[in-house]
């Protein structure tokens, strides 16, 4: 039995000054070690939900919050962001605005220094994070000298060094070219598989993700609409109506005249099916 690491119960949230709720009555539990993809149209509340998980909501944003969010047995409401940061790492959309130091090394130790860890441990974690993400060669570079893909890796490493159990990534590939995006997904998947890190990835590019993730959650209008394993979710009729970017392979399956009963979900599925008939 895998125990849930995130438990959200009846969560509603309104930003200060806003009239409309950004989240309404979200209930969700996420297992330790899961790779969750969170998606939905712009403005559906994905980012807001993520902010609730590391305490940016309510501690940084304020606003009206109802319901409970418990992460690694900590109720988010009762713990400071800095405390939660050791459980939940947050990687933001724009790499430029989350790197403040002038070298990669100093970027990675920033959080650890803030936690006032002993220097030896910081050094050890620095080396570990550089190695795990495979950016040892960037050590001395400054963030504005490296490519967007590399910047996002540095951002991941700097969060990873704080040894969180959960990693949240909010559209980390939106400004990357396709190959860089694909490679970044590989890095994330590796963290999930080898370290058992729980991943929550907000993304539009489902084409590249459908075979890596094991759970897809779709939000719309602040409400949790559909969730399940990617096969279930992409074969559901309502997904099509919501204008989610379902993988082209799945769309191709849906367009076929005589659909085989079982959803053809990956390239492998298609090849297998066409070879069989």
């Amino acid at each position, binding site marked *: 039995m895998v125990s849930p690491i995130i438990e959200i119960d009846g969560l509603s949230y309104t930003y200060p000054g806003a009239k409309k709720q950004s989240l309404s009555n979200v209930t969700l539990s996420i297992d330790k070690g899961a790779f969750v993809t969170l998606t939905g149209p*712009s403005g559906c509340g994905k980012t807001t939900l993520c902010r609730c998980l590391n305490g940016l909501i309510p501690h940084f944003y304020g606003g009206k919050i109802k319901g409970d969010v418990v992460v690694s047995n900590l109720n988010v409401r009762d713990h400071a962001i800095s405390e939660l940061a050791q459980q939940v790492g947050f990687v933001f959309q724009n790499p430029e605005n989350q790197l403040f130091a002038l070298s990669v090394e100093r970027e990675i130790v920033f959080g650890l220094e803030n936690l006032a860890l002993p220097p030896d441990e910081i050094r050890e974690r620095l080396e570990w994070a550089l190695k795990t993400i495979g950016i040892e060669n960037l050590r001395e570079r400054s963030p504005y000298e490296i490519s967007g893909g590399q910047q996002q890796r540095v951002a991941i490493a700097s969060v990873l060094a704080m040894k969180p159990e959960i990693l949240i990534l909010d559209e980390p590939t939106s400004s*990357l070219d396709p190959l860089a995006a694909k490679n970044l997904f590989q890095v994330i998947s590796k963290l999930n598989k080898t370290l058992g890190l729980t991943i929550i990835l907000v993304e539009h590019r489902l084409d590249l993700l459908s075979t890596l993730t094991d759970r897809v959650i779709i939000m719309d209008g602040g409400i949790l609409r559909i969730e399940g394993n990617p096969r279930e979710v992409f074969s559901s009729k309502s997904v099509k109506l919501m*204008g989610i*970017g379902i993988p082209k*392979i799945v769309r191709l399956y849906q367009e076929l005249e005589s659909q085989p009963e079982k959803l053809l979900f990956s390239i492998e599925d298609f090849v297998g099916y066409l070879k069989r008939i």
Partner: protein
Amino acid sequence: MIKVENVSFTYPSGVNALKNVSIEISNGEFVAIMGENGAGKTTLVKQFNGLLKPGEGDVYVDGRNTRDLSVAELSKDVGLVFQNADHQLFCETVEDEIAFGLRNFGFSNRVNKKRVKWALTLLNLQEYRKTSPFMLSGGERKRVALASVLAWKPRVTILDEPTVGQDQSQKERLLQFVRQLNTQGNTVILVTHDLEFVAECDPRVVLMSHGRIVADGPAKKILTNPKLIKKTSLILPQITQLFFRLADLGFPKDVISIYEAKELINDFVARRS
């Protein structure tokens, strides 16, 4: 319409962004300029409206050398819509924002009014006429930015990374819109690395890498060439990946569109059963 002859360009920082580039784009064409980040795509299109002037070589717009004209003169014909709408929005209302360009180009008040109304309708922004652009969502702001350029009816419209940060339904609407613009005779140039988007509009693809044009031809030919794709940090469209695997069943390899794929597979299934 646009003619680039042996153009090289180096930024003051020393980055050699274009190396002996030549290309011609005719009136009414639909072109996607693709390539990895830093390949020189944006540098190239900035030559089209004179924001950058060639270091060596010449760029002609409608037969006029861009060296002899100001950005404003060129922009009247070549509208460039930047990736980030927040880099241009500054007015109190959407209406003013759209009128900004028109006023700069010296259109009469009467024409201004007409064009603003036309652009608002075109991009489905009527209800926001009096709203501040800063109050709108990201997708809506992008539409305002687009409307503010289309309002003066440039003959060439360049869209720099229009799909970045857009969700699927926004992309679909954009796709429709771009197609419509092109069928009305407008020359449309997309700068993008969103190959799934390009696979759906099937334009002429100009592939760039490290400041050079490495390929130029129909999307179907370029996007299905693994060598070129690899060279430019792209990946094969998903449909193409599938058809590469299906080659030994007698399928063609150069398929990018979902509709063509559907036909081919339907035929195959019908023949087999």
